[in-house]
């Protein structure tokens, strides 16, 4: 019994968190944001069944998400029209089935190959579906897409899912269910063979397994969960559009999973939360926020290939020994980080200033010389004056070299913390 509670503990905690979150962040905007996060968590985890678990890099995962969204919209409309008593909470099942079916169809073509060829095929299939969406107007609804009024379905215990908070709980419940299921799948024979196929597909053939079939099943299941996410997305905005199957959507889930870190189960969850948050807030600061986003992605690929969760796990090893020494260890480490953070922020500020000024001169020259930095009305910068240009460049380059100088401090502190942790662990 204790064991059961222990193993279920984290899920019970997650369930409690989900219930109380709307009380902590009650504003309409934050409820909307959390809805998007819940959808993205499912989508990013389903993506990681491919990339992180099985080593398949897909550029077309939005196909299953998007097609499920369309089927969801059609299902809702059909249920309303024909009067079939189908409550909204069951609708995502239609999305799951759609995702699974298309995963089975397209997977049969793409999972024969691995590596780069698989990646390119996933891209080609995504383009195929996206281009088709412009032709098959009766199913994809052309430019407007297919809209569906979720409130007109039969009520579910009196709820009509008009208010966003009700949709939040619907998404949250499905999200928790899917996360538990996807976590469980990693701990099954198939889940482990996925890891083995990722590591060494050839050897898998000599322990009795067909690596192509392992990939195929994993791919189909990933399609199923992507389908749930897409279905919830259509329910959330009561609309399915061609952009749901598009390259940008496929790219977004890749970014979310990778930034969070594909090596750990929790990584894509963190990534989904962060990427959703950033994509909603960064636009308040800059028109070219997507560029910064791309740069963040490349920096992570270059310097932190295990993503955010990887960085967190690297710090987990310091969490050893008596509480006092743990805190002291982290205190010293973060002190060193602070030393490096100052020049890093200066470099970053200079670079952003420089980029924003180029953007202003190139695109908004007609609006005059003055630019509101980071869209703050209280920071006005004259782009025709030479001073801010010099300031930006000096901060960028000076910050870079100062950062390089400060790096040994961090490396040193890291090394010491590691030794200290090993000593107190032993």
């Amino acid at each position, binding site marked *: 019994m204790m064991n059961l509670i222990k193993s279920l503990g984290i899920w019970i905690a997650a369930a409690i968190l989900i219930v109380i979150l709307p009380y902590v962040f009650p504003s309409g905007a934050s409820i909307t944001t959390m809805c998007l996060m819940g959808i993205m968590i499912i989508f990013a985890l389903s993506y990681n069944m491919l990339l992180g678990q099985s080593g398949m890099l897909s550029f077309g995962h939005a196909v299953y998400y998007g097609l499920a969204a369309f089927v969801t919209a059609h299902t809702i409309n059909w249920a309303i029209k024909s009067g079939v008593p189908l409550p909204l909470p069951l609708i995502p099942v239609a999305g799951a089935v759609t995702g699974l079916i298309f995963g089975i169809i397209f997977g049969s073509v793409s999972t024969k190959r691995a590596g780069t060829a698989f990646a390119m095929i996933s891209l080609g299939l995504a383009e195929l579906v996206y281009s088709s969406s412009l032709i098959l107007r009766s199913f994809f609804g052309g430019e407007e897409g297919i809209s569906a009024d979720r409130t007109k379905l039969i009520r579910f215990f009196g709820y009509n899912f008009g208010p966003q908070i009700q949709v939040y709980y619907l998404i949250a419940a499905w999200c928790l269910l899917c996360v538990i299921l996807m976590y*469980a*799948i990693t*701990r*099954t*024979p*198939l*889940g*482990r*063979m996925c*890891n*083995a196929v990722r*590591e*060494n597909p*050839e*050897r*898998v*053939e*000599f*322990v*009795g*397994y*067909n690596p192509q*079939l*392992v990939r195929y*099943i994993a791919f189909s*299941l990933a399609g199923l969960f992507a389908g749930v996410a897409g279905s919830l997305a259509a329910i959330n905005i009561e609309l399915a559009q061609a952009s749901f199957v598009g390259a940008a959507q496929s790219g977004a889930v890749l970014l979310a999973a990778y930034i969070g870190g594909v090596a750990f189960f929790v990584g894509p969850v963190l990534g989904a939360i962060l990427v959703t948050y950033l994509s909603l807030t960064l636009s308040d600061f800059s028109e070219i926020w997507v560029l910064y986003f791309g740069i963040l992605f490349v920096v992570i690929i270059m310097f932190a290939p295990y993503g955010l969760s990887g960085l967190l796990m690297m710090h987990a090893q310091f969490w050893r020994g008596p509480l006092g020494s743990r805190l002291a260890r982290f205190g010293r480490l973060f002190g060193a980080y602070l030393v490096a953070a100052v020049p890093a922020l200066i470099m970053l500020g200079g670079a952003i200033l420089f980029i924003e000024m180029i953007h202003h001169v190139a695109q908004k020259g007609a609006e005059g010389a003055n630019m509101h930095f980071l869209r703050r009305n209280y920071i006005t910068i004259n782009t025709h004056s030479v001073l801010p240009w010099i300031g930006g460049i000096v901060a960028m380059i000076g910050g870079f070299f100062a950062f390089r100088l400060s790096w040994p401090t961090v490396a040193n502190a890291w090394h010491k913390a590691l030794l200290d942790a090993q000593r107190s662990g032993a």
Partner: protein
Amino acid sequence: MSSAVELDNLEKRFGKTEIIRGVSLDVKLGERHAVIGPNGAGKSTLFNLISGRLIPSAGSIRLRGENITGLRPFEINRRGLSRSFQVTNIFPRLTVWENVRCAVLWSKGYKYSFWHNIDKLEDVRARTQEILEQINMANRAQIPAGVLTYAEQRALEIGITIAGGADIILLDEPTAGMSRSETEHAVALIRKVSEGRTLIIIEHDMGVVFDLADRISVLVYGQIIATDQPVKIKANQKVQEAYLGAAGHD
């Protein structure tokens, strides 16, 4: 005695180059059979053909009487033939435990199940533990395989090979690159795990070969020039010539 592996006039060409030039061989059930020969004779190619990694250009392969020519490696493996590799071929980022367990799974019938909790499969756990003890790595179970020492990785390679319970085992140079004491350990291990099984082994260390094998086949330039008991192989005129000739180039 009935046959474990029968090769009938097996050939393998890569373009115009003929690597295996008509090999016929009959390995009996329960036999320990060694394949020796100079470098480039085609020993590993022969293993690749038997295990399904390569498809023969001509000829046939029978496993306990069943024709398995052209089957894929996993199909052959499921019929009870398992092999190791000359270049260590493990799952580097998985733990030793996971490495062995992956090799156990199919034989316990769980196939592609995504509904069993793998940690609750008592038969899989017991078998994995048994294999780890056999290869003396029970205390290394939670270490990622990629960071093991070379000799440990070779032992793990053997562990993965036998874990599925195959009764016909092909070992490709299991002791290559090992020190003398490591080789002794490895030979003891091979002797232990091949107990009651059919073993086909490629080996350069003649001490190991004559110590282990019931019969020896000598492969030279893609052809078997002799198959016999160790004592008789030593005395064989053709083998003498081939080896003394080859020794000059080695």
